[in-house]
């Protein structure tokens, strides 16, 4: 049994994703065994986290807050002038943006919705940043929107919803394909993925 304060720290750590009681206890014991400077540095860095990192005012990606410009931080991608401003990729979460970014296939910029339409969880269209999205499209002269919400019911519904909302703007709107992972044999692909890959096939001529 840990002393009271150590228990408090463990309880807090347990609130992190993927951390259970056992892992939290391990972290606490490790921190106590290490140089106290580590706990100090961790505490200081955490204390500053929300003040130093905020949502990008343009796209919702994470951005470093620059002193003097606290109100509207701009992320690295939005600040990068080499990016194609006419292509905008709409994603649900920052994690999805990071995944697409790692692929290196996206030359344009992003827009993070932050959530998906989900009446069951009480999320309606008014909870989506539609006005910011429209403003972004207008300001940047976006010509193509790629909707990259996940292939779940909520992701599909949000994609259909967005396509309808943006239809009047006269843009090219597409939905990311879903299919077979690269480098794997077709025989190992699960049936659902393979079925979707067939349904969403591409013409070769």
């Amino acid at each position, binding site marked *: 049994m840990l002393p009271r304060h150590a228990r408090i720290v463990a309880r807090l750590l347990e609130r992190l994703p993927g951390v259970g009681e056992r892992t939290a206890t391990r972290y606490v014991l490790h921190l106590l065994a290490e140089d106290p400077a580590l706990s100090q540095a961790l505490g200081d860095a955490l204390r500053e986290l929300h003040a130093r990192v905020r949502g990008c005012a343009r796209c919702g990606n994470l951005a470093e807050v620059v002193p003097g410009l606290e109100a509207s931080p701009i992320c690295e991608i939005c600040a990068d002038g080499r990016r194609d401003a006419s292509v905008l990729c709409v994603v649900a979460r920052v994690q999805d943006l990071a995944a697409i970014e790692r692929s290196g296939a996206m030359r344009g910029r992003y827009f993070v919705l932050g959530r998906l*339409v*989900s*009446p*069951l969880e*009480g999320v*309606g*269209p008014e909870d989506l940043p539609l006005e910011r999205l429209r403003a972004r499209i207008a300001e940047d002269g976006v010509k193509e929107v790629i909707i990259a919400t996940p292939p779940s*019911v*909520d992701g*599909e*519904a*949000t*994609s*259909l*919803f967005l396509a*309808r*909302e943006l239809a009047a703007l006269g843009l090219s709107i597409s939905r990311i394909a879903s299919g077979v992972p690269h480098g794997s044999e077709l025989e190992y692909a*699960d*049936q*659902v993925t393979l*079925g979707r890959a067939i349904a969403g096939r591409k013409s070769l001529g």
Partner: protein
Amino acid sequence: MTSNATLGIHRLEVRDFRNLEAQVVELGPRFNVLAGENGQGKTNLLEALYVATTTRSFRTSTLGDCVRHDAASAFARIRVLDDRQPGVARIQSVELDGQGAGRRKVQLDGKRPPTLAEYALATPIVLFEPASLALSQGGAADRRRLLDRVAIHLAARHGGGAELLVDLERYRRAHGHRKKALERAMDARVLDPYERLMAEHGVRIVRARREAAEALAGRVVAGFEAIATAPLRLEIAYAPKAPEDVDAFSALLAERRELDARRGSATRGPHLDDLAFLLGGRPARQVASQGQHRALVLALKGAELAAIAEAREVEPILLLDDVSSELDPRRNAALFAFLHAQVGQVVLTTTRPELIEIAGDRRDFDVVAGLVRPR
């Protein structure tokens, strides 16, 4: 039918599953009769076999309930001999977590299967329990589940099955969203996408169920006529509650928004499907006698076994719970005729083993206080 391969659970290893002691049970390839007083663990053993083959229980949707109350987890592992893969036994195991929502860890031949569907389709199994009697008299939900079980095995013929499970799950979720959206008076911008998704998945569900109903119908009629004495003609009709076209279905949902909002649920869609039985041209629910209902249920179970056997080219395992409740002298003849017609493995429970008229390849067990012993 007899040309099909056979399938059998050769051995069950179980631990902390309800009242069952840690033990190994070696089953015979044909009839296995589990005898014991009520509350000793007979149904628990059938449940362990069912969970190990399907990863689901027929008694609870909270798998944590299956874990013995003083244990952290429950475990059931089966060794399956399958003629389609001669020489090697298939090992399937399910470990259930007692805490929280009852997470499960499943392994197929020592590895995590790519999908739960792949695991659950490996060893076809059919359950006949006292609650199955509701198939002919009760609500339509049981009949929809029967259609879905058969449909999944029909799809598995071509290596599918998982898609249908995805369609059912997604249809359910899209329907739930639409219900909530109507309740909150959200507008067409939100309703349109969910109606589209309900229609896309719903149409595939209806198609799969129609195929399942076709595979069942002739067999049920033949089975019923063989059992029932009165010369009443049985007809079976699948009654889908949705158009089989995506655009038509989604347009129909859009038209019915106001009505559906008042009713609190969609008034069209495969969640309302039924399999209708007519006896002499009239609904069996209204005109059938108790004996005819039982005959119909036996015929349905027989048809389920036969349809799955044909689709999977193997005789499913039959689990039969509490047959002694069936042992009315006039009626047991039909039940034993049904049992004798089975060519696959059968595991049945009873409080009165002396009444089970099965000779030949039979293995008897006594179940006492969570322990299963060969007699």
